[in-house]
């Protein structure tokens, strides 16, 4: 395996451990916002899409990349905004908590 791949594996494994540990007890009211917030994060594939569509010439791969950019951006922007809207609902709750 290349060194870059090995480094990537380490990064993957450690990030997965962080993901497992970072969520402990979540009150049920927050399940949906948490799901939607982490869903927005998974729109990170927009970075891959940007790189894929970066070439100068028009090729199928660039077009696919641009479609991916649009879809992933909807996911990211929609996801964070929707989460915020949901959490706004619980504002009064926040003050008490």
């Amino acid at each position: 395996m290349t060194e870059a791949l090995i480094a990537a594996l380490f990064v993957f494994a450690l990030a997965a451990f962080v993901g497992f540990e970072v969520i402990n007890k979540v009150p049920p009211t927050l399940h949906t916002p948490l799901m939607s917030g982490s869903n927005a994060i998974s729109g990170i594939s927009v970075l891959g899409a940007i790189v894929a569509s970066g070439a100068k010439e028009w090729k199928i791969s660039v077009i696919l990349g641009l479609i991916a950019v649009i879809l992933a951006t909807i996911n990211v922007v929609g996801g964070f905004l929707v989460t915020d809207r949901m959490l706004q609902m619980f504002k009064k709750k926040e003050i008490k908590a």
Partner: protein
Amino acid sequence: MSDLIPTGIQLTYLVAASLFILGLKKLGSPATARNGNVMAAVGMLLAVVVTLLDQQVLNYQMILLGLAIGASIGAIAAYKVEMTQMPQMVGLLNGLGGSASALVAVAEFWRLLGASQSVPLDASISMLLDVLIGGVTFTGSAIAFAKLQGIMSGSPITFPLQQPFNALLLGSYLVGSAFLLIDPSNLPIFLGVVGVSLVLGVMFVIPIGGGDMPVVISLLNSFSGLAAAAAGFVVMNNMLIIAGALVGASGLILTEIMCKAMNRSLFSVLFSAFGTGGGAVAGGAAGAGATDKVVHSIDPEEGAMMLGYARSVVIVPGYGMAVAQAQHSVRELADQLEKLGVDVKYAIHPVAGRMPGHMNVLLAEANVPYEQLHDMDDINPQLEQTDVALVIGANDVVNPSARTDDKSPIYGMPILEVDKAKHTIVIKRGMSVGFAGVDNDLFYKDKTTMLFGSAKDMVAKLVSEVKQL
């Protein structure tokens, strides 16, 4: 000097990844959740901006246009969607993210095809995994969306030889992948693998009932994280790998937590239609023994009298209130009762309705004061001193057999103990079972009276009757 930009990009990625981690952590606790969401969004913004500086990106206009289009659609959708449609919305967005990850792999495949350079083995493996997971996320989320939105029936869809068919699909994915690992430039086989992945996503979700969709969406959310991580291995980008692994792992934990709150196992959610772990569905048969039991039914006038002359009323909303969109009438009823000097509280069960926080969202929409909402643990000890518990379209969450009958599929789930109140009024349309499909002994108790009818009508009638008291 030429080194400076890549280094800067990587260090910014590190900052963005830390923001994601802290954001996720904060999203898990009520006091900090909004902050956490903002932190994660800032991390995302940083990551996107800095990626535009990548040396491979030469073609800014189109990308910026794409970002602008995506952002506008996303923003409009986020502001247009109704609160009660949140689970669908999350499912839809999740599907888009999954498809984007898969498209990254497809685009990379096409690029390599054009460049006709040899593809390293690990890149091919990542690509194939990305296509599989991303494809399943895409179509699976689309089906989940359709089920929740009512475009498709919510009931589990099964057909003869379903499992052999699924096995066949999985087999052809594996065979196709093996071919591609040997000859990575075979376009038809690649497209075949893409197609099979998409069909697998459909097959994965159709046998699962509509009520379980929130869990399925959470699981698919975890998948979309894994798809993003796989895309990260394809283009060798640490940021994708970290964010993807984070979402993949935390999504799995969240799915587990959600299952536990509903007293189900993930296995039974996914496979109960095949009768393997079908505790919750099998229980439906219990209704058969109920024929000789007696139910006390009253009319709204009597109900209004019971409520109006009570000292304390606890309202227990459930899925039926959500379906009937009765929250505003409920709020009105509570106001009227308070005018009569009745002490009114709402008891919120954590899994009442069909999505976590469903009742909180609805009641917040109807401007019910937050102080009147009480958690299960909070209200249960008070129910004994309550004059009337008013159950509106709730069923499983007030089913005493969860406490007493260890053969019931919901045995062990903590419930709102309304059977301990001095009187209980239940509003529902008929004697149908709830989500878990089990009969409810509460309805046959002497202290319980039924008000049959749709929640919205019935509550409205109660309001007008209470006004005349």
